């Protein structure tokens, strides 16, 4: 029997926008509870002979598998490429084929006994998807030591995979006494009830079902897990070999050895209702995917000339990405220290494969999903209640993530003078999150140093509590990052409204936060809303003057981040806006 079919809203939207000359694409999904959920897609690029989807699969969280194909025409004939893809579908006996006609109408079919059967499907809204599915992130470091040859690396990684797949490992949920482990060919669990579901585990991990969590939409829940290796043998096993310890020393002509801490950092996606016990095999698969990615990065390097002479193999580093339009994680492994600029081709290919636009970076180091906020709140505006969409209202807001910088952070008292600096730091963080730069967000002092250095300010400015404005922000962005900005002058607060189309255009094309300075205050504009009937403009404001703790509910409820009407601006003050521009790149 064919499974029930659900398609993630992300996939539906991507399909409706797809523009390609390729004839076929792949669908990725997971099975849960008798349902096939389509989570992602990729294009089969014509110039590639290899089945790129098999490689791409390694970049996806474990549990997501190839589940079908996309056909970019309405006919239900089987091309050779399509056949090939469908043959590789293991997750279900009835591979899925989605056809798209010129009008971008989506039809889904299951291939049952070589025949296409059209099937209905449900959409899975993005918010439901993040509510129903949880990610498990496994991090561990395997000490690796082998001969510095392709064969050496291959064989050691194969043996590591075997070791992990043989039930010799146990997975430990960080900060708990919960261990999942292999027993003979079965799985055991200690530290909690064997009936526990993943969802219950997540709920028990967070101390209180906080309101904060509910306020944030598209909140990704992650269970941190590590790995421990079983060093004892199963006494009851029939295969028990009891040979006493011995040492064999083999000498041969000088060879090169490499040893390194190989860091496994891998994800799996899993439904809340899944039993925790079932996580074991999922994590084994996740580890193996990670090892394969790590292996390919090592092999690529060893294949290159020069490294054999000790020129220095680079440690593979793992990054997880969650591009906003895709709705699932993509994991990439790159050699440490190789600049993003020199890996543009690979990224371009990935963009093409995933049918992503080529005008903004998504897979640079800076785009990585984890570990950059250092305690700051990321995207507080997402917690602002969403208004229903009206046909006469145009809304354009910031694209991607940024961190909220405000007064008094980092134990630094800038109350009363640092608002423009903080607004600028918020902008800097946006550029970092979008992958445009890997430079650290500058401190107040670094900003002042920069302005002194370019001659904009006298040396007495350094260490002072003097304000800066939009032009200074522009200078700094230019000097420190090479980011160019557009400056808009508004003579009065009421004149600002005439620039609404410019702001809408800015958020739609560049998407960066805007710094606005006027009178004695600086603010960050995160979005703009224009009602063509009432001719009213509202602004999504992030206020850097907040001096309180990193508490999202206060920030939202007290209006430190929220929509403001035009009367928010002082009618008699001049305003300068700094609109940071982005360059098309990947």
């Amino acid at each position, binding site marked *: 029997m064919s499974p029930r079919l659900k398609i993630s809203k992300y996939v539906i939207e991507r399909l409706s926008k797809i523009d390609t000359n390729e004839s076929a694409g792949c669908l990725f999904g997971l099975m849960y509870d008798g349902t096939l959920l389509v989570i992602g897609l990729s294009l089969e690029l014509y110039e590639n002979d290899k089945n790129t989807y098999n490689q791409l699969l390694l970049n996806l969280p474990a549990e997501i598998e190839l589940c079908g194909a996309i056909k970019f025409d309405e006919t239900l004939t089987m091309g050779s490429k399509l056949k090939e893809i469908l043959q590789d579908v293991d997750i279900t006996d009835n591979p899925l084929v989605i056809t798209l006609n010129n009008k971008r109408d989506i039809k889904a079919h299951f291939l049952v006994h070589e025949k296409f059967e059209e099937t209905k499907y449900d959409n899975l809204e993005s918010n439901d998807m993040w509510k129903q599915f949880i990610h498990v992130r496994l991090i561990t470091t395997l000490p690796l030591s082998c001969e*510095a040859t392709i064969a050496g690396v291959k064989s050691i990684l194969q043996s590591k995979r075997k070791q992990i797949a043989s039930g010799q490992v146990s997975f430990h949920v960080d900060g708990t006494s919960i261990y999942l482990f292999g027993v003979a060919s079965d799985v055991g669990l200690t530290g909690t009830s064997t009936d526990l579901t993943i969802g219950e585990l997540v709920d028990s991990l967070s101390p209180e079902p906080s309101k904060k969590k509910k306020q944030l939409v598209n909140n990704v829940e992650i269970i941190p897990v590590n790995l421990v290796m079983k060093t004892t043998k199963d006494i009851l096993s029939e295969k028990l070999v009891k*040979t006493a*310890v011995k040492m064999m020393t083999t*000498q*041969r002509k000088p*060879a090169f050895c490499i040893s390194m*801490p190989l*860091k496994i950092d891998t994800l799996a996606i899993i439904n809340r209702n899944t039993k925790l016990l079932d996580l074991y095999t999922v994590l084994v698969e996740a580890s193996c995917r990670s090892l394969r990615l790590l292996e390919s990065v090592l092999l690529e390097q060893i294949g290159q000339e020069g490294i054999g002479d000790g020129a220095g193999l680079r440690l593979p580093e793992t990054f997880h990405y969650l591009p906003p339009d895709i709705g699932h994680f993509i994991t990439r492994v790159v050699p440490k220290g190789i600049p993003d600029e020199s890996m543009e081709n690979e990224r371009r290919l990935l963009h093409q494969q995933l049918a992503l636009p080529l005008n903004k970076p998504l897979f640079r180091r800076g785009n990585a999903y984890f570990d950059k906020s250092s305690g700051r709140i990321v995207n507080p505006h997402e917690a602002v209640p969403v208004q229903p969409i009206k046909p006469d209202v145009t809304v354009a807001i910031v694209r991607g993530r940024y961190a909220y910088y405000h007064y008094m952070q980092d134990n630094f008292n800038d109350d009363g003078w640092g608002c423009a600096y903080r607004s600028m730091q918020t902008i800097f963080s946006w550029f970092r999150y979008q992958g445009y730069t890997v430079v650290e967000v500058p401190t107040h002092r670094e900003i002042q140093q920069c302005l002194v250095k370019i001659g904009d300010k006298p040396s007495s400015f350094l260490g002072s509590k003097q304000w800066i404005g939009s032009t200074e922000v522009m200078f700094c962005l230019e000097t420190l990052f090479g980011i160019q900005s557009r400056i808009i002058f508004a003579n009065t607060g009421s004149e600002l409204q005439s620039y609404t189309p410019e702001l809408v255009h800015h958020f739609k094309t560049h998407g960066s936060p805007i710094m606005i300075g006027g009178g004695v205050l600086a603010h960050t504009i995160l979005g703009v809303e224009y009602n063509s009937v009432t001719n009213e403009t509202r602004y999504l404001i992030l206020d850097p003057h907040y001096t309180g703790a990193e508490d999202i509910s206060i920030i939202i409820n007290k209006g430190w981040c929220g929509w403001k009407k035009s009367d928010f601006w002082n009618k008699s003050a001049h305003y300068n806006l700094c609109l940071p521009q982005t360059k098309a790149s990947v």
Partner: protein
Amino acid sequence: MVRTVYSPEYCLQYLEQYASKEIFGIGLILGQTTAAKENVIHLARTPEEKSPDSGSESSYVSDKTEIVKNLLSVSEAWVADHAKHVTRMLPGGMFVQGIFVTSDEDIFEDPNQFSKVKEILYYIYKVLNVNQYMYGNCPYTNERLVLHMSTNTKVLTCKSVEVGATNKSTVIKPVEWKFVPKVQQWQRLDCYYEFDEVYPVIVKKSGISVKHQFQQILESSHKTIESSVMFIDGELKDGNEAIEQLIKKKKTKTNSKIAQQDVPKSMHVSLFVPFENTLPETVEYLECDGSIHFSGVVSSSVFICPKATISESIAAVKQDIIRSLASRFTMHCDALIDDNLLPEEKVCFNEPPRRVLVPVGSLYLCDYLFPGEAPAEALLSVRELLDLQITEAEVISDVETPADTSEFDALDRDASSEEMLATPQEASQFMYITGISFAMLVLIVSIIIHYYDTIMEVLRKLLTRS
């Protein structure tokens, strides 16, 4: 509260037998100390420095030596050496807890006698401290037991004497020694700890020191094992819980009708090692001349008083694995003629002795057999070091198996590159020769070690006479 020690009743007969037959005797007290209860498992008389007749040379020597007849003439080194050898036979969690003396003097009252007692204890302490991986000295207490039975009155006195203290005054406390007619129950914990590691090796001009390699393996294994997490019967337990609570739970879980007196079954232990990242975040690249493959198992069976906590049991298992490794390595290296593997040797196989179990009372201690040695060899150590007679059938010699040649060949092929010199045939021949030479060596070395003092004494006497 007075420290109380529980001992099996046969120990009393053992003491009485010596006290009535001989005017003087000295030996070791073996046992287990836990916070809840202290048990003695065995008393083992230190073999006389005179040797039994075994070889032609030694029988000649033995006639010349005098039998030690009093405490003051006992060699501290000899008793300490006994303690060192006995420690190898103890599973983790068991220690040499002190000494017993049968004599007609009051060793606690006579200052000369007592200072001799302290000297012996201190010497034992020092010798057992040499190799930390042997866990020779009980880590939980520095108060050693001294048990005395008067040969005249058969009166027993037991006291504890502090060793290794920094201040000069030695703490001496009375100890209550209780003989228990009922056989002490032990919870057995079993595991097979597996090694399978490959290390790169750098050969210097002088070759590779086997001892050094073993030492490195020991150090890194110690670190790994110490950091590991232990499950009992597949479950992570609360460290403060007593073992007997687990036994109860097990019983209620299975069949409560099973007679209470049933010997509790062995619990299976598994160890899990977390990967602690101590390596620098870079790829290390080095020129090496080959590799070391260290593989195989250490079988571990520890016996724990049911009143002991889970934490104490875990510590005992960890000690056992490390102590067993250290014992094998020491025995192996002591038996080597040449510690160095020379640069010309392409493949070299080092097979340390393997563990066998020997029954003592209601539990098992262990012994080690070199490749080619028969289980009967263990009878010798049991008789010599534990003063016990057991039969060959009682030795459990299959907890570990010796490496067979075919396995060596397989390893050999695994490791072989285009450059291998030793063909499998040559290798097995090599293996055979190694086996024989080990056996020979063990024989010679053990004779020398065993009779070292006697030989020296005879030589000295011969020299002074002439």
